[in-house]
């Protein structure tokens, strides 16, 4: 870890902790988040974590840039990795099927694995939530096995169904709402990923872990899933 504090806007500083995406970053990122929230208190307007950085948006009517910088530096003194007792572990049911996850066949072809084996391997791992972004509740998770990695579609879909589960490079994610998207789709979850009436709004938070669990069509429907085929949305 080689922390650097960089200017990003009149009232924002970027704390850069790492140079590469890695699961091992997370305990440090969580610990730094916690320290920054405490250090800034009511002067913190937003803290935006991503894979290797924490963007601090502070109240410029109270803090000078130099003061904000000093607060960040002080918050990092003797930082130790979080013991991660705060992160929740979620199990997301997924109906893996070609009608809602057409790239299952593409991933099978690329990897030389059977479709069933692609499903087994995607649902065998526990993934870290690295960051939320793109849309409310959209969690970037990883890392998927190297053999399942695949680049984004060269032409993104105009419409991806809510709950769609996809892979891009070594990351996996689920779309909270209907949106355009370029990820390789492999299935659909009935889970409500973003809910304005839920405490904390987003089902998943940075630092949480997620496991996908294959369910049958019948179970998917019972859990409230919408099985409208992808092509019917276009």
């Amino acid at each position, binding site marked *: 870890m080689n922390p650097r504090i*960089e*200017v*990003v*806007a*009149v*009232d*924002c500083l*970027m704390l*850069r902790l790492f140079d*590469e*995406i890695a699961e091992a970053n997370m305990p440090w990122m969580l610990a730094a988040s916690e320290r920054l929230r405490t250090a800034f208190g009511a002067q913190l*307007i*937003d*803290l*935006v*974590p*991503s*894979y*290797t*950085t*924490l*963007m601090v*948006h502070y109240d*410029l*009517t109270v803090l*000078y*840039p*130099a003061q904000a910088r000093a607060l960040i530096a002080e918050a990092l003194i003797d930082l130790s990795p979080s013991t991660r007792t705060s992160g929740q572990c979620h199990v997301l049911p997924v109906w893996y099927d070609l009608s809602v996850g057409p790239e299952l066949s593409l991933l099978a072809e690329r990897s030389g694995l059977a479709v069933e084996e692609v499903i087994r391997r995607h649902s065998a791992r526990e993934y870290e939530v690295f*960051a*939320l*972004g*793109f*849309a*409310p*509740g*959209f969690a*970037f998770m990883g890392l998927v096995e190297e053999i399942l990695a695949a680049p984004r579609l060269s032409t993104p879909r105009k419409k991806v169904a809510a709950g769609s589960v996809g892979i891009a490079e070594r990351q996996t994610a689920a779309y909270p*709402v209907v*949106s355009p998207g370029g990820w390789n789709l492999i299935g659909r979850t009935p889970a409500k990923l*973003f809910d*304005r009436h839920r405490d*904390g*709004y*987003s089902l998943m*938070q*940075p630092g949480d872990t997620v496991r996908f669990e294959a369910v049958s069509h019948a179970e998917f429907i019972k859990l409230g899933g919408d099985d409208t085929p992808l092509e019917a949305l276009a």
Partner: protein
Amino acid sequence: MTRLTIEASTPLCLLQDAGRFGVRHLGVTQGGAADGCSMSWANWLLGNALNAAVVEITLGGFAVVAEDDCLLALAGADLGAQIDGQPLAPWRSFILLKGQILRFNQPLLGARVYLAAPGGFAAPKVLGSSATVVREALGGLDGMGLPLAKGATLGYGGEALAVREVPLTLRPDLAAGTPLDVVLGAQIGQFSGQSLFDVFNSAWTLDSRADRMGIRLLGKTLEYQGQPMISEGIPLGAVQVPPDGQPIVLLNDRQTIGGYPRLGALTPLALARLAQCLPGAQVRLRPVVQEVAHREHIEYLQCFV
């Protein structure tokens, strides 16, 4: 509750306030008035909190009829506003009598005007704000992120003050070609020397590809020579440079994280001015360091005291 009925509207007429805060880590965008300065003046005219809910009217095509006698305020662009056919200039509060129609026609100067009401227009707060973000289905009159529609009712419950104007010396000059200040960011040194010269020494034309997420600038091709970036938080006003070398300034409805290199970020006042420019307009950029931009912003905030 004092009421107005919307007689005409467009998808660019939205209920806005200062936006959503404390939720960026969940992937929720900021939203809010694209010209925060004019929104603040519209609210100031009525003695409101500067971030009270207002109507953001972009380019025109909006009309309301008063169901009761109203005191309202207008700040920002001149969109050819008329009360029952009589011209109404912005930067003032005014009375709209029961039955009178306030109409916004077409942009004469600037792009966005803000209509405010005493105490702010009534709307549910979703994640702490009434700001309408259509893409995220958040905010607006019903909380579901819909633009203002014909037939809907706008209401407010605040107390009316006397009619007043924004002092001439304090009004932003939308016609002035003042360069837009960019707070220099960390990747600035990784653009080619020629690009750094071009950024601040040539004119940039606003592309027609412009919305509340971002405004694309057309001009010299900028060359980033650094490593590819990992996605990171994007501040309001960020000036990012995608591989085609044409910068994009990110506005209120931007994505929360992204991986294009950045020159820096426009100051809030520069961004407010950019939000008043129409496609085809030319702007120039000027570098500023964070400390100076901070001091100037604090001075600006003193205007409202």
